[in-house]
């Protein structure tokens, strides 16, 4: 049983990401999208939190949302995979269910 967790809120404004990371099981995947992609940036105050999650789960960020916000892929934390909409669909299909952290 593996779950795809989605986080679409900024980690600097809401606790959605923190709550998600505290509840994920090993082997799960976390997809950052919309304002959630800000958590994928290096040198932020939540970088440590995201990096330690990478030991446990796979983390993805939605490319179109990064581009819209002017965030270049080179600024994304190594280990986070950038996916497009087709990749989002694949992730949803590969996992047993999708859980959204709003």
């Amino acid at each position, binding site marked *: 049983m593996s779950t795809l967790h989605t986080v*679409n809120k*900024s980690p600097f*404004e809401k606790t959605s990401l923190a709550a998600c990371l505290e509840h994920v099981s090993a082997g799960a995947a976390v997809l950052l999208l919309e*304002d959630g992609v800000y958590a994928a940036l290096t*040198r932020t105050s939540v970088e440590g939190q995201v990096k330690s999650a990478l030991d446990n789960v796979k983390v993805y960020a939605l490319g179109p949302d990064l*581009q819209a916000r*002017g965030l270049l892929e080179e600024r994304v934390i190594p280990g986070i995979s950038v996916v497009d909409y087709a990749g989002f669909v694949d992730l949803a299909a590969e996992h047993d269910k999708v859980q959204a952290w709003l």
Partner: protein
Amino acid sequence: MSETIKNFLYLNRKAPYGTIYAWESLEVVLIGAAFDQDVSLAFVDDGVFQLTKNQHTSAVGMKNFSPTYAALGDYEVKKVFVEKESLEERGLSLDDLQHLTWEDEDEDWAEKDSIHLVTRAEMAAIMDGADVVFSF
């Protein structure tokens, strides 16, 4: 029309695109600029993300309004305050933001910087100094 010039501060604390606040604020600023008032913009917390360079929205199918910030100078908006601590917490520096300018008609249209990097303490003083604060 009233002769009293008030000092309006538009306080921007939301990231663009995820919610409509950033665009709504910008529209209100542009509309409000038609009235002769002293207007300043403050970018605090996630609001600093509004000013990042290289925004490309075609893949998400939304209007890219980041070029509109560059029009603020034409609308006599010359004071844009960005909070240093907010940038740092988000891994950003001034170099990641657009370069906004206004042209000084009295000095042969010399281009001057609109963005001023201020500390949190300075931002608090700017807020205190405003007659009216509009929050977005």
